[in-house]
C-alpha cells in the first residue's frame, strides 16, 4: 500500500505541476485551432509525435543543441499546421463537424507515417540528449528534464497568451475568432490569419512536444498524452487561452495522484483517470470553466 507523507506529497505535487504545465502546452494547440475554426484538430496528437521525432533526429543524428532542436520541432509543427489549414480546414468550411473530424483523422495517419519515416530505426523508445544536472529542494529532486519541461511549457503558454492579449496580431486573431465576417468587413485578412492561427497551433505543438519528450522520452505512444491533454482543453473551455493553465494543472494533479495512489493496484490508472475527467467535464460542464456557451438557432 502506498502511503502519502509530506515527503511523497511534495515530490508528487512537483511532478504534477510539471506534467500539468506540459498538458497545458499540449492542449494549447487544440484551443488555438478551436477559436478560429470552431473545430477540433484530431491530427494534433501525431503532429506532436512528428515534432518530437524531428527534435530527436536533429539533436542526436545531426548533433545540434537543444535550442536548435526546439526551433526545428516548432518549424515542422508550424508547417504541418499551416498545411492542415490550407488543404483540409479551408475546403471544409461550412461542412458538418464529422467532415473535419474524419479529415483530420486522415491527417493523423499521414503525420504518423511521416514521423515513422523520419525516425527510421529510432522509432522505438529513445531519449533526448539532456545534460545531467540535479538540484535538491528538500525532498524534491529537480533534474534537467524537469527544468526543460517547465521552461518550455510555461514559456510557451505565457508567450501565446501574451501574443493574443497584447500584440496587434493577437487582437486581429481574436477578432477573426470572435466574428470572421465582421473582421473581414474591417479589412482584416481573415484567411491569412486563420492559416497563421493553425500554424501557431502547430508550432505550439512542436514546442510542447520537446517539453513532453524531455519528461517521457520519445516513443510512439507520445500521442496518448496529447489525447489526454484534450481533458485540460475541455476543462478550461475550448476557446480560452490562458485558462488552459488551470485545466492543465487539474489534469496534472489528477493524473499524478491517481497513478501514485492506485497505480500499483491498477496499472496505468492515470490514463483512465484523465479520460474519466474528460467524460465528467463533458457531461457536467461541456463548455468548460472559461469557455463561452454556444446558442443555436434554426
Amino acid at each position: 500500500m502506498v502511503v502519502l507523507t509530506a515527503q511523497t506529497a511534495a515530490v508528487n505535487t512537483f511532478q504534477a505541476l510539471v506534467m500539468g504545465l506540459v498538458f497545458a502546452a499540449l492542449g494549447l494547440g487544440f484551443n488555438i485551432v478551436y477559436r478560429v475554426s470552431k473545430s477540433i484538430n484530431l491530427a494534433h496528437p501525431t503532429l506532436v509525435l512528428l515534432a518530437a521525432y524531428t527534435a530527436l533526429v536533429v539533436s542526436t543524428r545531426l548533433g545540434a543543441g537543444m535550442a536548435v532542436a526546439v526551433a526545428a520541432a516548432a518549424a515542422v509543427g508550424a508547417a504541418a499546421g499551416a498545411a492542415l489549414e490550407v488543404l483540409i480546414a479551408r475546403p471544409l468550411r461550412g461542412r458538418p463537424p464529422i467532415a473535419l473530424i474524419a479529415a483530420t483523422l486522415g491527417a493523423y495517419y499521414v503525420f504518423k507515417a511521416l514521423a515513422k519515416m523520419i525516425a527510421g530505426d529510432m522509432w522505438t523508445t529513445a531519449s533526448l540528449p539532456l545534460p545531467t544536472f540535479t538540484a535538491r529542494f528538500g525532498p524534491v529532486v529537480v533534474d534537467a528534464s524537469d527544468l526543460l519541461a517547465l521552461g518550455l511549457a510555461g514559456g510557451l503558454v505565457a508567450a501565446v497568451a501574451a501574443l493574443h492579449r497584447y500584440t496587434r496580431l493577437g487582437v486581429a486573431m481574436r477578432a477573426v475568432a470572435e466574428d470572421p465576417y465582421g473582421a473581414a468587413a474591417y479589412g482584416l485578412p481573415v484567411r491569412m490569419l486563420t492559416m497563421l492561427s493553425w500554424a501557431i497551433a502547430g508550432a505550439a505543438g512542436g514546442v510542447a512536444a520537446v517539453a513532453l519528450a524531455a519528461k517521457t522520452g520519445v516513443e510512439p505512444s507520445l500521442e496518448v498524452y496529447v489525447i489526454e491533454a484534450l481533458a485540460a482543453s475541455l476543462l478550461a473551455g475550448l476557446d480560452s487561452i490562458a485558462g488552459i493553465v488551470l485545466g492543465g494543472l487539474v489534469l496534472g494533479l489528477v493524473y499524478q495522484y491517481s497513478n501514485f495512489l492506485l497505480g500499483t493496484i491498477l496499472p496505468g490508472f492515470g490514463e483512465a483517470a484523465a479520460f474519466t475527467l474528460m467524460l465528467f467535464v463533458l457531461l457536467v460542464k461541456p463548455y468548460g470553466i472559461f469557455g463561452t456557451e454556444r446558442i443555436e438557432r434554426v
Partner: protein
Amino acid sequence: MPAGVFKERYAELMAHLRYPIHWAGLALGVAVLALLPLAGAYSVSLAADAAVFLIAAIGLNITTGLAGQISLAQGALMGVGAYAVAKTVEALAAGGHSVAGMALLLIPAAGLAAAAVGLLLALPSFRLKGYYLAMASLAAQVLLVYIFKTIIDPQQGITMPDEAKTVADIYFGDGYPMYYLVIAITAVMALAAANIGRSSVGRAMKAVRDNDVSASIVGIDVARTKALAFALGAFYAGIAGALYALTNNSVAWDAFELATSIDLLAMVLVGGAGRIIWGSLLGVLLLRVVWSNLDAPLSSLGFINLVGGVDAVKYLVFGLLVAYFVVKEPEGLIGVLRRVKEYLRLWPFSY
C-alpha cells in the same frame, strides 16, 4: 413514352429488388458467396473477417451515417459483444456447467449487452453534439479498453473451448459451417438495417441528422431517436463482436482499441455515410479486404526498403485516402460509382 420498366403499384416501387438487374445481381451475389469456399481456406477466413466488420460498419453507419451521431467507440462496443460471449462461456465452464454450443446461443445476448452499453454512450448525446460528442465517445472508447485490459481480461486473451462452438456435432469455429453461418447472419442483419433506414424510425434519424432543432420542432422525440440510434449501432457492434469471438481462436483486447474504431469510421466515410448497406460494404471491401492483403505486394514492390517500411507507406496512403474522400468526395465511393453509372448510362452520347 420512353422505354423502360414501369411500376403499377407502390409496393413494387418500394421493393428492395425493383429491376431485373437487381435480381440478376442477387443471383450473382448468392452464387459467388456460395461457391467462394472452393477458392480455399484463406478466402473463407478473409470473407468471414470481412462479414464481421461489415456488421460493425453497418451499425456505425446507422449511428453516424443515418442519425449523424459521431461515435469513436464502435471498436470497444465490438469488444463488449466479444467479451460478453467469451467471459460467460469461461464462467460457465469454471462453474462446471456444460458449455456446448454456448458461443452460438449467446450471440443475441452479446448484441443486447452491447446495446445496453450503447445506451449509456447515448447519454452524452442528449447534451452534446458534433466535436463534443466525438470527444465523449473517444473517452468512452479508451475507458472501455482500460476496463477490458485491467479487469475483464488481464491475461490478454480468452480462448473458448471447442465444444462451445459445436452444435449437433458440427464445429462452427472454422471452415464451411462457420462461413455459411456468418454469411447468413450478415445477410439477415443487412436486410434488417436496410429496412430500418426506410422505416419511420429511420426517417426520424435522418431528420435528427440534418437538423436536430428542426426535428424537435416537427415533433420528433430527439433524445429517444438518438438513444435508439446508439443502441441499434451498438447492437450491431455486439453481434459483430460475438461473431469475432466465434471465428477467432481467442479474444484479446488489442483487437478493440481506438485504432479499430477509427478504421470502422473510415470504412463508413470512405464507403459512403448514410448509404447503410452499399456504403458500408464498399468501405469494408477497400479498407479491410484489400488493405489486409497489401503487405506482400507492397514488400515485393520494394517498399520494404523505404524508410519506415511497409507500415509507414500504408499509414500514409490510408490517411491520404480518408482525407481525400472527405474533402473531395463527401458521398464516398458510392457517390463515385453513381457518377460512373450515370456516365455509362448515356455512353457514348453524353447528352
